[in-house]
Structures are given as structure tokens and as C-alpha cells.
């Protein structure tokens, strides 16, 4: 009986309207699968696929530990994200750090805190000098506005050979 009813549901009527139930079932399946995809996208967004979340926020260290970088792997065009560079050197020294790679083409540096003692061009990127505190630490906070599209490569290095390289992706 239930089987018969199911068959009746599948049968395409010609009156009062012309139906195509095979197609309609495809539409309903598309709606259902589409809903799963939407939920999956929501979960991925919560996890940070489109920046800000466990999938996106990264903390990288150089081999000797003198450079630490907190960055977002994923950015969105038009939104601002922080980049923190933690340097460790000798107490009260002025530390030199080079920010190299093609990242300046994809990002607009909106703000640098604290203000570097000096800055200069260096190849594709730039060099900055920052004043370290009594423990020899200096934190550099940059706020980056994503302006490009696609992958941009960054390399942060100090003259004593420590370096951190990473990629950042900007979504449209």
C-alpha cells in the first residue's frame, strides 16, 4: 500500500498542469544537497577558512626563536587583519628586521605600532629598525588591508640569519 502510494507520488500528472516528476525530484535533491553545502560552508567559516579562526590564525617561529610571527593565512579583499612580529635581541638595542617578499603588492599597511626608529626600502619589501626594551624584546604590530587577490609570499628576516617565511591568501 505504502509502495503504491510512493509510485503514485512519482507519477507525472498531465492535468491540471503538466508535471515532470523526474526533474522535480532532481530539484528537491539539489535543494537538500545544497543545504548540506551551506551548512558545511558555515562550519568552515566558523573554523576560519575565510580568515579569523583556528584554520587561519597562525603562529610561526624562526629556528633560533628570535623571530615570532602571528599572522592570518587567509584574508579577504577589503578587510583589515593584524600581523604581529615579535623580535628577541640584545637589551636596549635597535633591532633590524627585513620584511621581504611580494606581500606589499597585495597588502596595504594601514598602521605600524610602535613607530619604527627608521625604515628603508629593501628589494621588493622594506627594512625597519625598532627599539628593543630592557629584556631585548620588540613587538611590531602591523595592520594589513587586503587589496590584491590570490597568494602572496612573505619573508621576515634579521641580519643574524634568523628568518620566517609564510604565504597569505586573499579571497575576493
Amino acid at each position, binding site marked *: 500500500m505504502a509502495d503504491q*502510494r*510512493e509510485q*503514485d*507520488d*512519482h507519477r507525472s*500528472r498531465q492535468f*491540471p*498542469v*503538466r*508535471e*515532470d*516528476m523526474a*526533474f*522535480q*525530484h532532481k*530539484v*528537491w535533491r*539539489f*535543494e537538500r544537497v*545544497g*543545504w548540506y*553545502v*551551506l551548512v558545511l560552508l558555515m562550519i568552515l567559516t566558523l573554523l576560519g577558512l575565510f580568515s579569523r579562526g583556528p584554520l587561519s590564525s597562525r603562529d610561526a617561529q624562526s629556528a633560533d626563536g628570535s623571530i615570532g610571527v602571528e599572522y592570518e593565512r587567509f584574508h579577504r579583499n*577589503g578587510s583589515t587583519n593584524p600581523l604581529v612580529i615579535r623580535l628577541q635581541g640584545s637589551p636596549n638595542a635597535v633591532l633590524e628586521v627585513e620584511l621581504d617578499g611580494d606581500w606589499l603588492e597585495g597588502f596595504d599597511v594601514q598602521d605600524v605600532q610602535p613607530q619604527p626608529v627608521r625604515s628603508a626600502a629593501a628589494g621588493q619589501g622594506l627594512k625597519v629598525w625598532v627599539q628593543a626594551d630592557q629584556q631585548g624584546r620588540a613587538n611590531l604590530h602591523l595592520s594589513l588591508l587586503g587589496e590584491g587577490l590570490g597568494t602572496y609570499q612573505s619573508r621576515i628576516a634579521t641580519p643574524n640569519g634568523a628568518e620566517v617565511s609564510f604565504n597569505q591568501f586573499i579571497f*575576493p
Partner: protein
Amino acid sequence: MDSVLRAAAMYAVLMVLFKIAGRRSLAEITTFDFVLLMIIGEATQQALLGDDFSMTNAFMVIVTLIAIDVGFSLLKLRSSWVSRLIDGGPTVIVEDGRILQGRMRHARLVEADIMEAARSSQGIETLDQIKFAIIERNGKISVIAKE
């Protein structure tokens, strides 16, 4: 260049999303549907215009949207396959006073939805008085009463 790309991308994304939502979801049946539609419009506006508030940009976005829309309607005239893909087709959900349960479940409808449409359009009181109830392509339920 990017005004055309933005508008085309948003058109495509919205089209797919509204197909997923189904024909009934945003057919302005409840007040909340209306509010939801306004919020979607608000969120879309940013993506369409970006940070360019020039008249040229607004003009090009509108031109693109209308061009795509007219293009699709021309395509629908030529091909019944495209027409069906975009607009869908009507589905019978009540036949001679009997609800087709499987179809109702797939269409995410309950009996109250049918009776609401029956009362408001035909003044029908019971299910037995309905000859046919049909979900139209635009998501509204039309009801045909028994003689």
C-alpha cells in the same frame, strides 16, 4: 571592469542560493520572509558596489544585472530546457481531496499551508472540498475547488 564582474558574480551566487532555498522559501509569505529579504539586499549592496560610490559604478552594475536578466529571459524563450532549469515547474500536492504526502515532505509543506491558501483564495473550509492544490513556479499555492 570590476563593476561588471561583481554584478555577474553576485547574480550567479544569488541565483544558486535561491535555487537551494527552494521556490517557497522567500515567496514573501510571512513578515519574516520580507525582513529576511531586506537583510539579504543590504548585505548584497556592499558586495555589488565595493568602495566605489560613483554614479558610473552604480550605473554599470544596474546595466549588467538587467542585461543578464534580459539575456536569460531570451534564452528561456528559445530553450524549454533552460526555462525549466531556471523557473522550475508546477507540482500537484492535493488531488481530489487527497494529500500527496511524499511530495509534501519533499516540498517542506504541511497541511496548514494548503488550508491557508485554500481559505484565502477560495473560501474553502475542508480538505475534501479541494480538487487540486498546486505549488506554482513562484512558490505560491493555488487551489482549485470541487464543483
